[in-house]
């Protein structure tokens, strides 16, 4: 009686109706009745940032499991993580945030990854009065717009600039700098922060070039660079892009001419070493965390992570890990899971983790130390540190 087309149309419609009925008002149930606190995780699970978001989530989950195996916060309250995908897009991030806060009723949210998403979702945090703690986003505006409900649980460009430029200019004699930076707030903000400090220390900033994320061919920029008299090339970006820059830098023979620097440690992970195969030898930089830090907390973290994932952790995982612990400690101090109480308790954080001591300043920016790192024989070696990032 019905044509093929008609049947198919009805099937499709039926599927949609079912999906709508099934989806509305539901979501991951995962409720531990009784003593449990829900923490939201707002991270890109799909899309171009999925890989890096995934690393952060690994750190978050490791910390939550660590706490739960010990019985939970204060030995009695387990952590229930609720992960919602922000896909790296502001509107999707806002949707995920409103779902975490309104439907799952979490006590605090860890995220987002991309600054654009954090900037969009922090409005929701402010309106709903739930703390949003970003372990990754670097846009200065996040802590400068007077929104007391958002926290940045990692270093920012100015702090890094402070710590690193002193070392590079004084110890490594780099007076003439060139920058190749990714065209994002991270890249641009960092170039500004670094240039200021370099000039203060009597150095010079020459070539500054920005590339778009995902760019493959850097020969044009590097050829330009070759024609300058820069003593050091400062790279600002992430693993994939910078590994290409470094490879091509090496192919053009520039490593004989100038020193490579990655002060914001976008590349300090094992994947970068794998992709550059020794061509990055001698590179120096700064990072709040590498896997070769000698403190007991760091060693424990690295061992636990390696046992789980078969590779050493890098700074995203560490940031996720630390953030969970800091929130857990805040909940313990507040003796409450009410979002407002958790937020207030967070401001009182005095934390000691794998990377060192940390606390929040009055703009909710985390104050931590940096380490000066160099690449030797395919490993990240701590040259100096901890160095104070804030005078």
């Amino acid at each position, binding site marked *: 009686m019905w044509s093929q087309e008609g049947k198919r149309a009805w099937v499709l419609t039926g599927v949609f109706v079912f999906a709508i009925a099934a989806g509305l008002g539901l979501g991951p149930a995962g409720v531990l009745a009784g003593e449990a606190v829900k923490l939201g995780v707002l991270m890109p699970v799909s899309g171009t940032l*999925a890989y890096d978001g995934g690393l952060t989530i690994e750190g978050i989950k490791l910390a939550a499991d660590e706490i739960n195996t010990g019985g939970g916060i204060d030995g009695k309250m387990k952590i229930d993580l609720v992960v919602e995908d922000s896909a790296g897009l502001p509107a999707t991030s806002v949707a995920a945030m409103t779902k975490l806060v309104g439907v799952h009723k979490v006590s605090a949210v860890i995220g987002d990854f991309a600054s654009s998403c954090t900037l969009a979702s922090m409005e929701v945090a402010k309106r709903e009065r739930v703390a949003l703690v970003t372990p990754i986003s670097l846009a200065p505006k996040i802590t400068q717009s007077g929104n007391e409900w958002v926290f940045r649980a990692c270093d920012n460009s100015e702090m890094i600039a402070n710590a690193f430029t002193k070392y590079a200019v004084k110890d490594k004699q780099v007076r003439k700098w060139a920058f190749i930076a990714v065209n994002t707030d991270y890249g641009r903000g960092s170039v500004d922060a670094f240039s200021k400090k370099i000039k203060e220390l009597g150095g010079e900033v020459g070539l500054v070039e920005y590339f*778009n994320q995902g760019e493959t*061919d850097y020969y044009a920029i590097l*050829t330009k660079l070759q*024609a300058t008299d820069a003593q050091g090339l400062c790279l600002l970006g992430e693993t*994939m892009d910078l590994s290409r820059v470094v*490879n091509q830098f090496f*192919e053009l*023979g520039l490593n004989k001419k100038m020193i490579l620097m990655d002060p914001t440690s976008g590349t300090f992970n094992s994947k970068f070493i794998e992709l550059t195969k020794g061509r990055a030898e001698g590179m120096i930089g700064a990072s709040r965390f590498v896997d070769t830090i000698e403190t007991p907390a760091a060693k424990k973290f690295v061992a636990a992570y390696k046992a789980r994932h078969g590779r050493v952790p890098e700074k995203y995982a560490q940031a996720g890990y630390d953030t969970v612990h800091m929130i857990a400690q805040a909940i313990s101090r507040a003796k409450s899971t009410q979002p407002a109480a958790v937020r207030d308790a967070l401001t009182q954080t005095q934390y000691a983790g794998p990377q060192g001591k940390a606390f929040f300043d009055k703009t909710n920016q985390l104050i931590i130390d940096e380490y000066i790192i160099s690449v030797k024989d395919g490993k990240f070696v701590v040259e100096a540190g901890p160095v104070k990032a804030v005078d």
Partner: protein
Amino acid sequence: MITVFFQQALNGIILGSLYMLVALGLFLIFGILEVTNFAHGEFYMLGAFATLFVMTGLGVPFLPAVVLAMLCMAAFGVVVERVVFRPIVGKPLINGMLLSFGLSTFLTNAALLLFTADPRKIESEFAQVHLRFLGLHVTLERLLVLVVGAALVGFLAYFIQHTKTGKAMRAVAQDRIAAQMAGIPVFRIYAVTFAIGSMLASAAGSMVGAIFLVSPDMGWTIVLKAFIVVILGGMGNIGGIVCASLFVGLVESLGGGFVSYAYKDAYPFLLLVLAFLLRPEGLMGGRRA
């Protein structure tokens, strides 16, 4: 200063050769099946992954791995043509576009899921050989792009001009119905076209994977540039595509090097606008719109 110019120009020609390989496949698929294949970049990407896996999994050296990948992707292309594109032959062009876009999304994200977003690099021994002449730097790997590109284009041109299948392809491109009435197995030609297009894209992808990186989202940017090349190339013949692709590569490289690197992705578009202004009746002389 002169050396910088020539270095940028050399970079541009190499870049253009990569665009050329992808654009040729697009051009063939468009000309013969009348489909705008947005998923072409994914054949390029899968070719790169295929090469990577063949090399790391079976220990095959670089060049044979590229060839093997091309053969794999040819087979894959035939399957895709049969399963995905054949049902919509003759339907409005939006269908083909959206269909290929759906395919592109599916392939990119399936690759993301299966291979993870972990970036990888194909290591070939050619990368180690640095050539230096007249103040120009180039690795053998990059030079290979020119060699392989030229060889493949040569084969393609010969194939289209002088073989029976090539002639049949040209017939179908001109008029599908007439070709059918003349007894040409049109659907088989479609399969062959897709196979060739996929092979070219795969070769480009493999080389890019060696020079730059292999990752699931590498297909999208090159496919857009390849489309511009196809339009600029006059839609008429292979020669047009070759010239257009080298031109686009040069403009991008020289513009990026001397004018502004940040805006370099926009230069091909500006070329297009310029072309329209200079030839307002359109660039597509000789082909039906």
